[in-house]
């Protein structure tokens, strides 16, 4: 599968209180919550981000609380892939479960805001500014969950 989109660049330790601040967790739908995604870090992120664009970050993306509303609002806005140097554990698992592809890439420093990034999940490569980067694909166990579209479908298939 090929994903191509504009890069939105973030730094280290983007926590789930930045991805979705606590006061919005009780809004009645993920759609309404998604208007406040990334609000403390980038005002109007939900307007600026176009479905298919790609988040790029440094270390420990998604640290902090276990709130699944955080990846859910990103998915709602059309996030399909996140590239970071590494991810926090609960966020990582939540993304797998709802079908967002996470790519760990040490060379994330080369990526800037506005870069047009292309990802080939079959070849496990990323192309940015005519340079090709190779990433380590997920383990088969996790790939299997994502390929079914997340934990719900994986679970249904097992039944």
């Amino acid at each position, binding site marked *: 599968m090929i994903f191509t989109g504009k890069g939105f660049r973030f730094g280290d330790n983007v926590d789930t209180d930045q991805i979705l601040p606590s*006061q919005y967790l*009780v809004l009645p739908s993920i759609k309404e919550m998604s208007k406040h995604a990334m609000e403390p870090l980038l005002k109007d992120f939900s307007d600026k981000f176009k479905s298919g664009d790609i988040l790029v970050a440094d270390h*420990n993306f998604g640290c902090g609380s276990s709130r699944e509303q955080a990846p859910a609002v990103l998915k709602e806005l059309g996030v399909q892939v996140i590239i970071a140097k590494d991810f*926090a554990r*609960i966020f990582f698992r939540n993304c797998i*479960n709802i079908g967002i592809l996470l790519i760990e890439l040490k060379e994330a420093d080369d990526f800037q805001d506005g870069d047009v990034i292309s990802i080939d999940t079959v070849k496990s490569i990323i192309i940015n500014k005519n340079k090709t980067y190779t990433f380590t694909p997920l383990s088969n166990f996790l790939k299997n969950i994502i390929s079914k579209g997340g934990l719900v479908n994986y679970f249904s298939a097992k039944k």
Partner: protein
Amino acid sequence: MNLTEKIIAKHANRDNVKPGEIVEVSIDWCMANDATISLNIDIFKNEFGFTNVWDSEKIIFINDHQIPADSVNTAAVHQKTREFCKNQGIQCHESDGVCHQLMFEKYVKPGELVVAADSHTCSYGCVGAVSTGMGSTDIAAVMGTGKTWLKVPETIKIDLNGILQKGVFAKDVILKIIKDLSASGATYKTVEFSGEVTSRFSISERFTMCNMVIEAGGKSAMVAPDEKVVSMFQNKNIDWDFLTTDSNAAYSQTITYNLSDLTPQVACPHFVDNVKDIKKVEGIKIDQAFLGSCTNGRFDDLTIGANLLKGKKVASDVRLLVTPASVDIYREALNQGIINIFLEAGAMINHPGCSTCWGACQGVLTKGQTMISSANRNFKGRAGSPESDIYLASPATVIASAIVGKITDPRKFLEDIK
């Protein structure tokens, strides 16, 4: 195997497990709270299509994050929780306290495997249970099946030696460890605490240590049960012989501390690993001080605070908010005269719950304000405005700062530290 591995192996129905293996495990307790319950219920019903929970006695719902309801939206979430619990026969706690404190007081036993829809679930390592936080889809699957998958974590052993100075507490120790490990230094790993300082810590202090392992990215935390834990569970039927680390146990890393020279520590905005010695931040003016949370809202924490505050007043331009972590703690603090000391000093007492630890209800901050807090997170905007600042410290440092109106070394009031 180390104790965490032994407990995971037992719940995977296996003789042994190795770090990195993915295993299916059965769960002893599954907990969720009002920060995410609504989403858990939706996924449980609408996406998985479950009609009944796997075991209504093993699932605990706790309204604690926004209690009492602070908005119509919150009231709707609480109502949805009550109805779901009633239909499924699930225990629903309201107004009883912070979820992790209640799980510790009422449910979790040594050797158990617990998952909950909250990142601070790692706390129950203080009584020798393996426990970890998960998101709503994982929790909905556990609610329906009683099972989940886990990657067996590597274990970092942290050996704590020396004698803590008067005025230095478990909170200072864990902040120092998080500084050294960094906010991601324990990602996907378990942290096992050992050594003479750990042995001397009360179970409440071990709770503080285990609770904050997530702030270094940890999956779970562990303190091997000793006579203090045995005494807490003396009426329960527990296989204590099983709850030991094998002599050939392996650790991915061992870190040794001598803590005799440790001074009070403060985590500065906006990251929990941005930790400094108290002398580097002393004198910073504060608008609010918070004593509470699952990290430091227990009876011993309130007692430390009350001893410091007795006969003194909170600085005139500071608001001190005190929130006991549970109703049992609240009642004991009332009976012992501790609540009265806080009231006499000018503090506001909130009903047990998450309260000011997160910026969704009580005691939120506006632009330009500064709070010192005994809680666990100081992320940008965690207490309201993204343009406010949160400093994290021990209950003693919080109360000393509330008295002076500026961040203050609690050793300034050394004679009041019991």
